């Protein structure tokens, strides 16, 4: 059937596996929404928008015609705007999102126009542009335009600033559905399509991608470290992880590209799991403020387990899936070093260090999240209410995603790499070794033996209050919330000024653009003061100017 649409649509290996995951996330989001969105107004609107998003995402992935791709892409931006607007008091965020994503759509249109000028066709599988032609400037511009569109969608810096705001204000299933999973899949799909198929990459463009990736990883994760709101924290991580994908694709080696694509899938899985679990918490406690939460793991055990698995995955702890894709990206970087000049080598190594250190920072901020939501001392107001876990419609998506995290980690080379990633980038040999199945087997064996021995040895257990020196009971004033974990880092000299600037929106391209545009607006406001003589003077000056020109 699909072949009849051939010049317009095309199903290849990359698009088929991405559409598969788009389907999975749409299904899970709809199941989750049944309970979470219950009792809201205009629900029919919400479900129609979700399904339309699904359809147009598949449209983007299957489109083989650049204009068609652009239409679906723009439509997605509009749908995102409408979906964010479903929540009350989120119109400002929705506007910001729409301006950033819509603005990048304009760039994309420009890029597509240049491509048409260079090649004379819109058909994507016929386009193959090299950077070394005589039109190198136009080629560079068109590539950068398309890359900017994909960055805005996926949320790479500097076009990231809508994601943390959106994560905080939009309805939670929407966040888990769009910025966390679908937008990553689509943005990185576009970047991969553009970098691998439409253009023949050169070293400078690769370096550009790698630097953007490395910078995104570090800067976003440093911001995530000091957040006080669970959803904003996750939002910054949704930005930071894009860095690994861009970095992977930027390496230009097939190992790195495989890592980038695999990380895209993994990220979509664990990040939507994390958002959904924080949705469970929000549903029960009506807050995602980390200062007010704590000690929830006893009342929400399944949510806690899913969140723990997803957190360990995103931090790249073996044997979960995030580790495998990061490991592939690192190998891609090490492979990319092998070639040429010393400057190139140093930059690639900087990126490698940023990526590896970023993963430690990720671990740190997730330890904070886990501690302040599920572990630590319970907040009294929460402890008294005696919650229980949420209903199955909300637990099922979390559990399914957590299980996929484990399976994709342990059987990485047997299942996801073999069926989804290898067919796209071709087979290759790893630089290192990681037999995750064996390692997991040994760890599980050790745990099993340990617990058996523990169980058989009849050790007596006794419950008692915690020990605090002379106190017998932990007072509310001694409660340590996870939000205070990294205050010492926040207070370090250089970081302190950067954090202060970042909190004021100094690094937010949207805020800066707003100041610029309002500045220009003020200038025109100054001119239009409504006094007749001023306008007459302007008219006179204009006439004099015209005379001088056409004299």
């Amino acid at each position: 059937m699909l072949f009849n649409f051939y010049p317009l649509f095309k199903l290849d290996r990359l698009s088929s596996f991405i559409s598969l995951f788009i389907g999975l996330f749409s299904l899970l989001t709809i199941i989750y929404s049944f309970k979470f969105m219950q009792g809201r107004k205009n629900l029919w609107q919400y479900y129609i928008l979700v399904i339309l998003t699904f359809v147009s995402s598949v449209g983007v992935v299957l489109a083989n015609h650049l204009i068609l791709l652009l239409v679906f892409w723009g439509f997605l931006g509009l749908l995102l705007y409408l979906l964010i607007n479903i929540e009350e008091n989120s119109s400002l965020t929705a506007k910001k999102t729409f301006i950033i994503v819509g603005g990048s759509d304009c760039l994309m249109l420009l890029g597509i126009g240049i491509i048409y000028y260079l090649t004379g066709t819109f058909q994507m599988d016929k386009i193959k542009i090299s950077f070394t032609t005589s039109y190198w400037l136009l080629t560079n511009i068109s590539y950068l335009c398309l890359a900017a569109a994909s960055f805005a969608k996926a949320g790479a810096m500097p076009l990231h600033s809508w994601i943390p705001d959106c994560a905080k204000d939009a309805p939670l299933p929407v966040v888990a559905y769009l910025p966390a999973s679908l937008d990553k899949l689509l943005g990185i799909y576009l970047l991969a399509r553009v970098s691998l198929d439409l253009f023949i990459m050169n070293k400078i463009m690769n370096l550009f991608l790698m630097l953007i990736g490395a910078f995104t990883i570090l800067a976003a994760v440093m911001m995530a470290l000091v957040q006080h709101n669970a959803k904003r924290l996750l939002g910054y991580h949704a930005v930071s992880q894009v860095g690994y994908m861009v970095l992977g694709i930027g390496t230009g080696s097939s190992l790195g590209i495989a890592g980038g694509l695999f990380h895209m899938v993994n990220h979509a899985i664990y990040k939507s799991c994390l958002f959904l679990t924080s949705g469970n918490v929000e549903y029960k406690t009506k807050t995602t403020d980390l200062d007010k939460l704590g000690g929830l793991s006893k009342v929400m055990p399944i949510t806690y387990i899913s969140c723990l698995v997803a957190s360990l995955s995103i931090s790249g702890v073996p044997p979960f899936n995030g580790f495998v894709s990061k490991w592939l990206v690192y190998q891609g970087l090490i492979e990319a070093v092998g070639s040429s000049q010393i400057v190139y080598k140093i930059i690639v190594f900087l990126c490698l260090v940023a990526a590896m250190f970023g993963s430690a920072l990720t671990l740190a901020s997730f330890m904070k999240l886990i501690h302040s939501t599920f572990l630590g001392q319970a907040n009294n107001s929460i402890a008294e209410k005696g919650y229980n876990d949420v209903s199955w419609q909300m637990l099922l998506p979390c559990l399914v995603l957590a299980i996929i995290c484990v399976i994709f980690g342990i059987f990485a080379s047997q299942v996801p790499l073999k069926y989804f990633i290898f067919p796209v980038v071709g087979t290759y040999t790893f630089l290192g070794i990681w037999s995750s199945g064996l390692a997991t087997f040994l760890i599980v064996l050790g745990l099993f033996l340990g617990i058996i021995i523990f169980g058989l040895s009849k050790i007596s257990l006794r419950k008692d209050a915690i020990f605090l020196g002379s106190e017998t009971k932990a007072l509310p004033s001694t409660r340590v919330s996870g939000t205070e974990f990294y205050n010492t880092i926040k207070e370090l000299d250089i970081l302190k000024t950067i954090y202060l600037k970042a909190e004021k929106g100094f690094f937010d391209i949207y805020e800066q653009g707003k100041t610029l545009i309002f500045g220009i607006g003020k200038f025109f406001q100054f001119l239009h003061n409504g006094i007749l003589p001023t306008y007459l003077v302007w008219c006179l000056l204009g006439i004099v100017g015209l005379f001088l020109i056409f004299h």
Partner: protein
Amino acid sequence: MKLVFNYLIFPGFLFSAVVGLISGWFDRKLTARIQWRRGPVWYQNFLDLIKLFSKEIIIPTEAKFTFFISPFVGVCASVIVATMLGRVLVNPSESFIGDLIVLVYLLVIPAIAFILGASSSGNPLASVGASREMKLILGYELPFILSILTIIIKTGSIKLEAILNHQIVYGSHIASFSGIVAFLVAFLCAQAKLGFVPFDISEAEQEIMAGTLIEYSGPLLALFKLTKAILLYIMPIFLIVLFIGKDTSLKFLFLKYIGLITLIILLKNTNPRLKIEQAIKFFWGPVSFLAAVSVILALLGW
């Protein structure tokens, strides 16, 4: 079956635990001699463990199930690392489970176990300890990664056996400019990974009453002590494989191991405990600078 033997007996659990505990005794003995005391008998650590295993467990009322799991996970992960390192030393021609990057990531798991276990206990002091442990990881991870990258640049491979073979053929990495700088950095990071003075900030007995371990008792505490003992065996071996792996005959291996452990213990006994922000500044400042120098030296081929 051979794998299970490797994992449980040699060079895995049993062997590393015994060597680690004896090294722990060596630590106590040497410390005692430095402080002009006599020190314990060589099997003192075994007695301590046996005693702990026979005690009851006191569970804090607010504890969560990760409180139980964490000690087991810590032991299992460190045993995996011990097995990997041991197998590559016994037979440098085949690889097992993972490469250097995997190893670095596996080495973080015991620390995660400490943090999660401490957080699960519901004790504020344990939370303070957990936050310090995590900050310490952030501190030493940056120079640690850099010093490991130095080795990767010098060897051109991330496989452990390739790193060892490279040294057997071309001489130890420590015998070059970049190698010795990277070794210094990795040595300091190892001290922090072991949680020894001056970096025992997360456990600071006099200040936060053993921090991360405050609520642990009986067999669960014993498991954490065992994790520490195995780590005390792993870290010197790790340094040997990476930096001074030219001669891996039993005699030299033993001498190198004793030498490194003595260095670690001397550093431990001649320094006061740092504050956590001092430790972070130390690792992100001078140590990372040294590590960056070693990377650049390695890129230049020195």
